[in-house]
């Protein structure tokens, strides 16, 4: 899968035969997956079926017991972990805030590499998730759940990734705020970002114009469950 797309010069994130055994159980069981830059894939499925685990494996934060993740057809093992993670961003289900202000959080990724994003750049990232520039000076620890989720998204985008893995990005938001976030996510895809979105909400895939995949007990299938 991955190779043919790469032969055409399209950027892709893929995985083949992913397995993860935990305490004698297969949390992931032979998962094949591929997504191209500019596309959105939605992963649905019941609680505990392995969605978050799959995202963590795709982000190389968790080592699979079988199979491999590929970025542009290159095995993740052949790419330096920090390089891979800068190119493939991951926002967990309840993204923890780091010390300091919202601006500190948004600048965290570049700072880890010794870069110092300008205040304008921080505002740009906040604007991408629909947050006002005035937010930059707020202490991150004071934010509401929904605000945190958006700051986490802005923080991930500050690294200028090629792919973005989102674990239930709208879980802490009301319907209106969720719609706005989904709109932003869709806009990001139009600009060439590849997105993998885990969601519980069946309407999201339609709202995102995404390809649907459903997980069940560690297995991933095309279409809805």
């Amino acid at each position, binding site marked *: 899968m991955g190779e043919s797309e790469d032969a055409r010069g399209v950027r892709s994130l893929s995985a083949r035969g992913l397995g993860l055994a935990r305490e004698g159980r297969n949390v992931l069981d032979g998962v094949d997956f591929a997504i191209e830059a500019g596309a959105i894939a939605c992963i649905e499925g019941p609680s505990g079926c392995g969605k978050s685990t799959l995202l963590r494996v795709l982000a190389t934060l968790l080592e699979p017991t079988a199979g491999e993740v590929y970025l542009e057809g290159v095995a993740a093992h052949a790419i330096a*972990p920090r390089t891979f993670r800068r190119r493939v961003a991951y926002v967990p289900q309840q993204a923890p805030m780091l010390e300091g202000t919202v601006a500190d959080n948004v600048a965290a990724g570049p700072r880890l590499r010794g870069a110092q994003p300008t205040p304008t750049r921080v505002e740009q990232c906040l604007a991408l998730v629909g947050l006002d520039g005035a937010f930059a000076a707020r202490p991150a620890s004071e934010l509401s759940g929904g605000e945190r989720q958006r700051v986490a998204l802005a923080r991930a985008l500050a690294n200028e990734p090629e792919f973005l893995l989102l674990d239930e990005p709208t879980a802490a938001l009301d319907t209106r705020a969720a719609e706005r976030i989904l709109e932003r996510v869709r806009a990001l895809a139009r600009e060439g970002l590849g997105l993998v979105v885990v969601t519980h909400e069946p309407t999201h895939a339609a709202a995102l114009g995404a390809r649907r995949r459903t997980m069940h007990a560690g297995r991933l299938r095309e279409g809805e469950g």
Partner: protein
Amino acid sequence: MSYVEVPLTRLALVALLVAIAALVSRRARLDLEGSIAWAAVRGAVQLLAVGYALRLLFAYEHVLSLALALSVMTLVAAWTAARRVEHAPDRRALFWPALAAITAGGVVSLVPVFALVITPTPWYSGRYVIPIAGMMLSNAMNVVALTLERIFASARAEAPRIEQLLALGASPEQALHAQERAALRAAMTPTLNGLFTVGLVALPGMMTGQIVSGIDPKSAVRYQLVVLFQLVAVAAVAGWVAATLSRRMLFTSREQLRPF
């Protein structure tokens, strides 16, 4: 100046003090009588044995016998430190990092002092090296146990934050920095507090011992200062090495936080 010996019979009398503690335990239902008795017996046996061992060591002064004694002390310190750490990705793997950290702390704090500051003849004079090395190694042991326990416990409690940093492109060192810093600061605090309050409440052990055995307090204070400064160095070095090695236990070669 005269020196008052403690005869064995009178030493036995002191055991009554332990009996008082046991009585208190029974009255207050602390349920500690067993521990008190066992601790007293074990402490007595260990110390009496050490007394004889030291006697032997001082009588047959030799580089090898000193090296042997220091090795045993270091090994026991490492073993004890490793055993005290409850949270770890792999408890069986703790001994070697603890040994490395304690050895590093011991070397850094002892070698310069015996090379340049306290220079007995011969240099391998057990009477000087053993007690001072003992103080360094036991401090290193405490610092290493505290550092490792705290780093592992907080890495576990704050795993989502560490993983978030990794996801943003942090190195393991960057991802664990906050936990390492907090652990090292906490582990060094008792040693630093020792310096802050020294002499105001209690006189430190080494100085007390020298004064009791008839040394001029002026000289005793100098020795004590040397030891206190050594303790700061041993705490910093042993703690830092332990923290650095803990990272290898917490992260995989693929820079993933190990689940534990």
